[in-house]
């Protein structure tokens, strides 16, 4: 049986050593079940903070949620005196990592604060202090602690604009912030000792990192040259000292396209989703589908939202170049299955995908405009005004649908004619 590290002795929280000079000074939160509203956790989480002891000064890397500050300070005091702290690094400014910062700065006023460039405005907003002293850092910057040093890696949007990683080269240890983290609470702390956290690791990636795959890949470009690492020390969950390379590799795998790409070179994918109560929006969908199919190099797919769970559609949309939604208007609104899908897309990156909306309506027809606004809110581009048809589409109106599909498909492959619009003609 593996002996758990001693986290508390005689009622006093103790630091746990990763090495002679590196210590975990974080806190465990086993009772947490919902994190940040969006994430579930079946056994809580940990707020990992670390102390690095150099010959010329000590560094504190991240802190904890405010309500756990007592544990953090007790653990810190078990391995350092406040006057020994010369450096405070914040890899990420979310309150679960900065809750103890104001008090730490009060207790160690001589320490210099190191944050990423993009963290500046957040720090000011978080601490509500105007007279703050700090140093902003980018990749290539470092700070010396004597016989230990910290190098900074600029890894924005993992998962906030401010996020960065900090590397301790003398010990091949990466303090990765939320990257490689998960919400999993186990007092055995280390990945070779804790319970099975594989699901938590994957779940955390899927909800926190997946929307930023592009940035994950950029970050991995910076992290992979550091391999082999001895330890990855994330800000949540188990400390990865046993074969940490696996987790870097897994992040690379997860950051590739979710579904195998079936298209050939240069081909674009256009997905049409619709739902229809009396078949009118369906007839529009079929005509739009037919119109889009006429354009070469566009692979078009047609889906009835009634026929699937949401999750597979989210995967499809992640890999698609264009998405068209068809919805009737019922009681002045788009219908729930459409909103359900549209509210499930926060976990993927939609920026600059092509969007379009259509639908049949009875008397008001607000749904199309509402969904268009939502698509723009999700950062899609919606260059062609939505198509609304009152009740049953006539042959002429179906021609409009064909043209709508054709035009969207042309837009996707860059064949749409440019035109000059007068501002006064824009609605």
């Amino acid at each position: 049986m593996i002996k758990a590290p001693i986290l508390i002795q005689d009622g006093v929280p103790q630091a746990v050593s990763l090495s002679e000079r590196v210590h975990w000074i974080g806190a465990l939160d086993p009772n947490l079940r919902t994190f940040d509203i969006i994430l579930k956790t079946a056994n809580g989480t940990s707020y990992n903070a670390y102390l690095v002891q150099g010959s010329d000064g000590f560094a504190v890397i991240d802190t904890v949620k405010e309500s756990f500050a007592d544990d953090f300070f007790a653990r810190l005091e078990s391995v350092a005196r406040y006057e020994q702290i010369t450096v405070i690094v914040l890899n990420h400014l979310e309150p679960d990592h900065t809750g103890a910062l104001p008090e730490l700065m009060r207790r160690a006023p001589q320490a210099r604060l190191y944050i990423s460039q993009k963290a500046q405005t957040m720090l000011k907003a978080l601490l509500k202090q105007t007279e703050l002293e700090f140093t902003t850092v980018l990749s290539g910057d470092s700070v010396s602690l004597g016989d230990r040093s910290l190098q900074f890696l600029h890894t924005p949007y993992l998962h906030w604009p401010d996020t960065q990683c900090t590397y301790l080269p003398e010990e091949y240890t990466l303090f990765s912030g939320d990257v490689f983290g998960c919400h999993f609470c186990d007092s055995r702390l280390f990945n070779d000792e804790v319970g099975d956290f594989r699901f938590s690791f994957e779940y955390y990636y899927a909800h926190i990192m997946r929307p930023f795959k592009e940035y994950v890949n950029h970050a991995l470009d910076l992290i992979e040259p550091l391999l082999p690492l001895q330890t990855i020390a994330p800000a949540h969950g188990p400390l990865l000292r046993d074969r940490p390379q696996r987790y870097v590799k897994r992040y690379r795998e997860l950051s590739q396209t979710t579904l195998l790409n079936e298209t050939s070179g240069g081909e674009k994918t256009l997905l049409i989703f619709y739902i229809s109560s009396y078949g009118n929006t369906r007839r529009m969908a079929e005509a739009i589908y037919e119109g889009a199919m006429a354009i070469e190099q566009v692979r078009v797919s047609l889906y009835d939202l009634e026929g699937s769970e949401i999750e597979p559609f989210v995967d499809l949309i992640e890999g698609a170049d264009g998405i068209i939604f068809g919805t009737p208007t019922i009681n002045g609104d788009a219908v729930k299955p459409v909103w359900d899908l549209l509210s499930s897309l926060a976990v993927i990156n939609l920026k600059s995908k092509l969007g379009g909306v259509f639908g049949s309506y009875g008397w008001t027809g607000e749904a199309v405009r509402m969904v268009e606004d939502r698509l723009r809110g999700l950062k899609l581009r919606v260059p062609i005004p939505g198509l609304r048809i009152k009740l049953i589409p006539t042959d002429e109106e179906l021609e409009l649908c064909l043209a709508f599909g054709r035009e969207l498909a042309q837009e996707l492959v860059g064949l749409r004619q440019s035109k000059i619009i007068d501002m006064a003609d824009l609605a």
Partner: protein
Amino acid sequence: MAKATITFEDINVTVSAPAGTRIIEISEKVGSGITYGCREGDCGTCIMKVTEGWNNLTEPSVLEDKILRENMAGKHNRLACQAQVLGGVIKVKPV
């Protein structure tokens, strides 16, 4: 009144707009992929790239400059919610 023609390269749409119009007002109407957060020059979400006609836009204010710097924007970047068209030809695209 002087007019500018502004092209949103991501959607290949060109709009003729009166001098003084903010790019946000045009881009949202035509559905360009430039995205907006606070809409008041504070968050940096709407950073765009100006590919042509930099001098056909109003000069960035001190506040806009600050936000661009904090977001490590490139030298051809502006905030679409702040930049106003002056005249001539302008081409922009999302970053």
